[in-house]
């Protein structure tokens, strides 16, 4: 007998494409937040499918802390060219130079928290009314309650107690002047779903995701890339190790894992066996138990 069942990856894909098309229809000036990480690459891929054979009808926006892995930037420029998309870059360095934020000092200094200001400034400067992101609800507790269409007030703040109910597939993107939305098309995906989808669709990724011998050092049990942007303590020795990165963000708060996974198949096998969440390797979430909730209220991704 013929059955009409979609696999879960096809169902998740259909949902994400539906959401992206709603964004294009309901907002005047949306943008897609692109970090060069696998989640934002998947969202860009979905956007390409959603509007094909037309181009993606909104720009890709990269909030650049300046503390990047070179591979990420090379990948970004190459990928944007392939998509024939428009790229907008918001520089954290500009926010620092304008005196809007003060750079953290010391061994754990990171520009991660400063990104929020640059993001909100970029949104304001370009009058974006919706910023599409690759965040997933399975990543972290505060994200578990995020909507697909997440309403932000004129200060870019998220009020967890005042979110619009989302019923069926009816999304409400109406807003007052000055307000905007964050939209998360892959809300319902898990890390495993993302990897399986990348394999199924044969999506290209930055080499950082694959195991390779890299120069690293170990701090509080976390393997960090040896980089000019991170001040090392005297006893923190640079060593060579075969590692890969599970998330790609600012270099100062992205930890690596011991891994020999050199292909997508290897990574999927590793993800299936792993016992630590991917954000478990991120230094920024460990600051306090409610760290993500606080950053989101301020207007973080």
């Amino acid at each position, binding site marked *: 007998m013929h059955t009409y069942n979609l696999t879960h990856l096809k169902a998740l894909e259909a949902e994400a494409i539906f959401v992206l098309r709603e964004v294009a229809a309901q907002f005047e000036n949306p943008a897609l937040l692109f970090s060069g990480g696998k989640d934002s690459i998947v969202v860009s891929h979905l956007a390409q499918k959603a509007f094909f054979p037309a181009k993606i009808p909104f720009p890709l926006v990269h909030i650049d802390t300046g503390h990047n892995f070179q591979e990420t930037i090379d990948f970004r420029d190459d990928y944007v060219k392939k998509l024939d998309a428009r790229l907008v870059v918001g520089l954290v360095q500009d926010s620092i130079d304008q005196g809007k934020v003060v750079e953290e000092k010391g061994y754990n200094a990171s520009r991660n928290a400063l990104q929020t200001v640059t993001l909100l400034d970029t949104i304001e400067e370009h009058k974006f009314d919706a910023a599409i992101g690759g965040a997933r609800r399975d990543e972290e507790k505060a994200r578990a309650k995020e909507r697909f269409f997440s309403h932000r007030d004129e200060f870019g703040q998220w009020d967890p107690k005042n979110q619009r109910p989302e019923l069926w597939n009816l999304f409400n993107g109406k807003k007052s002047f000055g307000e905007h939305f964050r939209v998360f098309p892959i809300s319902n995906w898990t890390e495993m779903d993302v990897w399986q989808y990348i394999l199924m669709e044969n999506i290209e990724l930055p080499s950082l995701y694959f195991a390779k011998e890299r120069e690293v050092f170990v701090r509080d049990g976390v393997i960090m890339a040896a980089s000019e942007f991170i001040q090392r303590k005297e006893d923190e020795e640079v060593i060579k190790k075969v590692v890969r990165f599970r998330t790609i963000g600012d270099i100062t708060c992205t930890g690596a894992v011991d891994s020999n996974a050199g292909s997508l198949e290897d990574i999927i096998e590793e993800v299936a066996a792993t016992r630590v*969440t991917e954000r478990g390797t991120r230094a920024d979430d460990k600051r306090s*138990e409610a760290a993500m909730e606080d950053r989101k209220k301020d207007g973080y991704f």
Partner: protein
Amino acid sequence: MSDKNAYLDMELLRFTTAGSVDDGKSTLIGRLLYDSKSIFEDQYEAIELSSKKKGDENVNLALLTDGLRAEREQGITIDVAYRYFATPKRKFIIADTPGHIQYTRNMVTGASTANLAIILIDARRGVQEQTHRHTFIASLLGIPHIVFCVNKMDLVDYDEAVYEEIKKEVELFSTKLKVGDIRFIPISALKGDNVVNKSEYMPWYQGSTLLYLLETIHIGSDYNHVDCRFPVQGVIRPQSDRYHDFRGYAGRIASGVFKPGDKVAVLPSGFTSTIKSIEMMGEQYDEAYAPMSVTMTLEDEIDISRGDMIVRENNQPVISQDIDLMLCWLNERSLTLGGKYTIRHTSNEARCMVKEVNYRMDINTLHRIEDDKSIGMNDIGRVKIRTTKPLFFDRYERNRETGSVILIDEQTNETVGAGMII
């Protein structure tokens, strides 16, 4: 990896859980996640630490689902939270909703996309007012499968008689409701009986465990594959030489099965044409069904825009400006009789006026209240509305996608009402 292909073959099941904090709902979800090995070490360590800080004897699995700080402090769940886990057979999306009376709106939200509802009943207390409420909402929202979990069986000495008594009572009151498929399972979320592993203490129960049921229950018929409805989300017209003449209609199939060559009608214009292709980034489909997102092209050039609907010529929805709804109110500002709201239905948007409130439901007793027709936050009532232009719809009972609407307050832009077309 041996089950790599198995993973690619998995289905998606969305379910919602209803019950108050005391029913052990968070513990049940924690148990499902923990016993199905969906908990990561760092998550487990975090709740182990929190449990110790609070002086709990065992690791409190309920902490896994307590998301926001405000909730952890008050010890209650205040909004819909989504959880994920997978077994080799299926991927599960849990809409975890609180059961307090003031949060009817959250349960309605969580239930709107669910294939299945789990309703928890405390074995010591039996059927409560809220059991009626949860069952009513699940039936109103058209959830195809309802599973009643009689929890805390360990506290009633795993007594079959207690379970049978509760089962009989639920069966009795649910005959008054429209529910398709009802199941019962005696469990202890705390001890793990019949959740993932079969209980040693209830040999009298011959049925399956909760997880086995979730993995195997037939969901293929949950979508309507009969009435062809394709609401157009947008028109794709590439500004390029290569695709100069391309005109594609982007959308997600709400119901039915479409094939190239099918004769179709476009609403509201009524023009007819034939489907030329159904595609996604160059890949051509022989057929497309709900809930697929596709791009459709037609043989004829017809003026079609967002909000229009492509249907089969000989199976058309109701086209009308006068609509009867069961309406669940979601906002602190009560429904205004004669008030005007924005209405969203499929990809269509219009304005509407509330013409009449027929009655308000007492959602605990299922009585119709006709002497006080005010509809406030968390109330459910039957209303008549008139829209500024015709909508193309089906009864909610027959089609959840084309039978549902939301109302939006025109001052605050908030989503204030969820309506099911009668």
